[in-house]
């Protein structure tokens, strides 16, 4: 029915949801039509409702919404099935609308729960719990409007720009990573010392490709069992030591 959207599951930016007009979906629209037309849900005049549905989705400008089109196609198919001649008293005849009715009823039930949740949630929104926030983790800002002068803003921008390295905009030189070279460096350092830190392996002015090379080299060597990588706590300096086992061997 819909293309799988892998990106949306992974990305961690807040998603942007567009509500199609006031309806939350084709079933919502259909229910509203059935209510407006005051028809019995167990005996839907499918031709009339299908026509209305099509009229509404064109007037709402929803032509591109696949979900609505899928429902439109379903309605037209049911309409066609209803037109097929059938022998009187034939027991095997199954109402082509049955599946649609079942879905509408199921959807309607769910809408009643929505009303309930909306009411309870709104009441609850008027009450605050004691706000317990561990001091260090208090990174949720209040929704306060940002108040600062133009001067302060420019100063802040200046501070940010000063610590960032000048971006290289024109030279795009594809540079392969040098993992083997970095492994050599790490081995040389560890041959002299039992343990070293991440900062000992990466020069202060290292280019991104150099940093990446060292990182991959460390991971590769850890996999080979040549060294162990440890970090005492979050954001602490990474400690790299010779693996005792490979040393013994």
């Amino acid at each position, binding site marked *: 029915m819909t293309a799988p959207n892998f990106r*949306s599951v992974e990305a961690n930016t*807040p998603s*942007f949801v567009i509500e199609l007009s006031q309806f939350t979906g084709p079933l919502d629209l259909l229910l509203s039509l059935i209510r407006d037309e*005051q028809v019995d849900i167990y005996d839907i005049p499918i031709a009339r409702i299908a026509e209305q549905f099509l009229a509404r989705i064109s007037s709402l400008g929803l032509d591109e919404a696949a979900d609505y089109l899928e429902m439109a196609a379903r309605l037209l198919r049911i309409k066609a099935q209803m037109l097929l001649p059938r022998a009187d008293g034939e027991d095997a005849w199954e109402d082509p609308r049955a599946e649609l009715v079942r879905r509408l009823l199921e959807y309607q039930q769910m809408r*009643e*729960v929505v009303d309930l949740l909306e009411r309870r949630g709104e009441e609850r929104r008027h009450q605050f719990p*004691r706000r317990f926030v561990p001091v260090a983790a208090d990174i949720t800002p209040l*929704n306060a409007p940002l108040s600062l002068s133009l001067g302060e803003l420019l100063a802040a921008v200046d501070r940010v720009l000063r610590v960032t390295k000048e971006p290289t905009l024109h030279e795009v030189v594809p540079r392969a990573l040098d993992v083997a070279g970095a492994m050599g460096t790490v081995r040389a350092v560890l041959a002299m010392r039992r343990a070293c830190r991440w900062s000992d392996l990466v020069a202060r002015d290292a280019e991104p490709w150099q940093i990446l090379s060292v990182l991959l080299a460390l991971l590769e060597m850890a996999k080979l069992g040549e060294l162990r990588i440890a970090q005492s706590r979050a954001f602490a300096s990474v400690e790299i030591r010779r693996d005792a086992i490979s040393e013994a061997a």
Partner: protein
Amino acid sequence: MTPLAKLLEAALFAAPRPIPLETLAALDPESSPAAVSAALDELREHYDVDGHAVELVEQGGGWQILTRAEFAEAIERAQVAVRPQKLSAAALETLAIVAYRQPIGRAEIEEIRGVAVGSVLKSLHERGLIDIVGRSEGIGRPLLYGTTSQFLEQFALRHLEELPRADELAIALRGAGNATVVPE
């Protein structure tokens, strides 16, 4: 107030989330669960009768002290605390389906709602209202979702059973154009 009621008050004040009855009972091994329940009643009455600005509420699988609704506007205006954002109709529909059918996969939710729900699920998950509770045995082993205690808390529910049973929900559509019957 009895010493036990005071002890409960202190614990409830210190807790970030609703405290389950068992945890409250563990505060004082000497007291029976019945005594703890009685002390909770006492504390609630104390808040109600003596005109306090907070009240004791049972929800989200435990007990919690909340400010009374009448102060919400002033508190928010002064930006002392922020109310959780209102959910969109699409988010509420999805949440209702997850609440009733959990554990449930994305495809089944889409089947009921008739629209794609990927981004809605993601934002509900980010708000901590639903969580991944497992994987289905079906093709592709899709993720299954369920509601969290945060959901109960945000909708002032003691537990999931407090929602009306599916067969209790009135089918208001039978006959001509009835308004939706709100279950009580």
